[in-house]
């Protein structure tokens, strides 16, 4: 019997923007409902209270809002760094390592030149060194890709581990006290190399820098010739070559930019807020940033929203584990479910699901 299938999936050509947002909001609501059910069944807590604690943990006090913005800023900085590479279809999974190298560069300058030169000059050197470190870490796989067409996914990924081992080595070199395996806060008493506070907040400068970079990246990708070239390379390398774009040059140039911005993220962490160097300093943001960039379709302005979402979930999950003395895995489960729904709803944005019109006709 030739039956019309119950569910028919077809590709959407275009979707009106409010419809897209409607689908996203429905996905989040569904995720929250499912999390609520799981919360009630497994812990016996009132899910509304749990969500309230998540919101309180993120927005509850002025300080928490500052921390939220700071964490968004760093995640966003790495995400906008990755965006042009991904748009070029260059799978840069080395954001963690590039940011870590930037952090290593900044920390090295702070430790070695600490009190020997004026603070302004010191910070200037930190900026240059960490940007250079991040860029070098990104340009190595880019050159190999451009020259010998090596696999950049594996290459950038492996560079992360090299960076982690390098940092682990220098942590032992600079540890205080000897044998402790920790650097601690660098120049805690002299504050040499610490970024100045703007507007009485230690976070504001980082946030302003990243906001400026985000807008600049938006303009670069959307309106500059470079931005156009890298999107053509991403769509089709032969086409790019045909229209006279130097593909090798574009790959290397874009990765220098990508790595440099990751280096800036490392710099902001070391000089701006954390003032230390550990192997876990970047805490996987190089990978989370991939998700942020993809979810926002490589649009730096949308990335503000997606990185907010990720940071909110992380911070909220942390709060509920403390407020309700739950295991950390519980927060991870909630975060996982919500992200699953949000990523899953992309399917419904790209495909249209139609149900069989009428049962009677078939029967």
């Amino acid at each position, binding site marked *: 019997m030739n039956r019309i299938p119950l569910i028919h999936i077809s590709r959407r050509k275009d979707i009106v923007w409010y419809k897209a947002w409607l689908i996203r909001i429905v996905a989040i609501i569904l995720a929250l409902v499912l999390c609520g059910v799981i919360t009630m069944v497994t812990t016996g807590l009132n899910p509304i209270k749990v969500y309230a604690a998540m919101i309180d943990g993120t927005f509850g006090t002025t300080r928490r809002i500052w921390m939220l913005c700071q964490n968004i800023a760093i995640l966003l900085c790495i995400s906008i760094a990755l965006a042009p590479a991904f748009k070029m279809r260059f799978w840069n999974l080395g954001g963690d390592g590039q940011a870590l190298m930037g952090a290593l560069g900044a920390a090295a300058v702070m430790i070695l030149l600490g009190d020997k030169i004026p603070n302004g000059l010191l910070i200037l050197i930190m900026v240059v060194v960490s940007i250079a470190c991040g860029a070098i870490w990104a340009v190595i796989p880019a050159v190999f890709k451009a020259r010998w067409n090596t696999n950049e996914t594996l290459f950038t990924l492996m560079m992360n581990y090299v960076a982690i081992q390098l940092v682990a080595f220098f942590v032992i070199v600079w540890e205080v006290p*000897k044998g402790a395996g920790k650097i*601690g*806060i660098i120049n805690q008493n002299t504050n040499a190399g610490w970024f100045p506070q703007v507007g009485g907040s230690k976070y504001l400068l980082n946030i302003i820098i990243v906001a400026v970079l985000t807008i600049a990246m938006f303009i670069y990708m959307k309106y500059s010739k470079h931005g156009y070239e890298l999107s053509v390379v991403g769509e089709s390398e032969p086409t790019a070559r045909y229209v006279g774009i130097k593909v090798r040059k574009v790959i290397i140039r874009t990765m220098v930019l990508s790595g440099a911005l990751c280096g800036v993220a490392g710099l902001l962490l070391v000089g701006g807020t954390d003032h230390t160097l*550990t192997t876990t300093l970047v805490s996987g943001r190089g990978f989370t940033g991939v998700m942020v960039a993809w979810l926002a379709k490589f649009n730096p*302005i949308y990335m503000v929203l997606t990185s907010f979402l990720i940071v909110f979930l992380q911070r909220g999950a942390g709060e509920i584990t403390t407020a309700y003395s739950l295991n950390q895995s519980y927060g991870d489960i909630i975060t996982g479910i919500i992200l699953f729904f949000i990523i899953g709803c992309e399917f419904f944005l790209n495909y249209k699901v139609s149900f069989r019109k009428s049962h009677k006709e078939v029967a």
Partner: protein
Amino acid sequence: MKTFKKIAVMIIAAAMVFGMFTALGTAQTKADEGIVAGLICLHDENSTYDLNFINAFKEACEARGLVEGETYYISTNIPEGQECYEEAMNMVDRGCNVVFADSFGHEDYMIEAAKEAPEVHFCHATGTKAHTENLPNYHNAFASIYEGRFMAGIAAGMKLNEMIAEGKITEEEAKMGYVGAFTYAEVISGYTSFFLGARSVCPSATMEVTFTGSWYDETKEKEGAQMLINDGCVLISQHADSMGAPTACEAAGVPDVSYNGSTIAAAPNTYIISSRINWAPYYTFVMDSIEAGAEIPADWTGTIETESVLLTDLNDAVAAEGTAEAIEEAKAKLLAGELQVFDASTFTVEGAALETYMADVDTDPAYEGDTEVVIDGAFLESNFRSAPYFDLQIDGITLLDTAF
């Protein structure tokens, strides 16, 4: 143009949401209504070290009627970085008037928090900087755990003697193994006191030490213990916080002197005894002091007398006969001050007796010694600050690796 419009709408919406929450965002104050306490832990209950803190904290808080999630809070899995500062300030936002942290690497971040919230007390276990920072609301604490390890070492020495008497090993084969985390004073002081305890009853005892470079790495600790056993060590002890060493010992049938608390459940056939720091007296002392408005010292060292240094669950099935009595005897002498753990006549450094030593009591990047700590023929540990500063390599102990 359409994109711009969308973006503009989104930015305005975001700004409004942000503004709303900013208006709501004012710090809560519960502090006037009595003690609200917070504890920041590096790992969670799966780490024997953190579990020891969590249990003591709950005990001390519940003894004074505090309620978890309302008047006391525990944050677990807080790394030794900016996250510690953020969590400490989060504790302040929750209304805490005292915040404790449990890991050595938390110290600098606790100091940052203490500078920012002068009305809140920050108490850091195992830290070294309170006596030089001069912050009235920042405090260090530790316990004379070297005395506990010395007594645990006696149990180890008795076991070695038993093995020699039974003909299982010769006197020369009385070699112990020790799995440490890092190569700094806290660990060195720990294994040296353990070794001196063992050698005080078994003079031919020697020891090999390996380091894992992590406070909690079950695989490395297990491998480390296994390596020591393969190397001929007939008894194992450890100063790292997972169940790695005890489980390796149980599998190999090698007796183990544990740390942080009893591991008898996981190793019923090899566990002898464990020493641990009981933090509850310190927590109670701090909270009492805050309530009474009394000053909290920059350094607080718990002792056998304050019940901060405890030995837990002697396992009669494994321990040698007479162990309990030997430990009681040593404990009485330690309490009376007749016995010094680091009595300079009981050990040598590079073949020579120790007559003078400048220890790095005031932490600095160059590790310069600044305080004479050998007084009247004994190295005075935890006397000039609470955290250990004994970092000498004494004869009889071999370090297999010092990468960390």
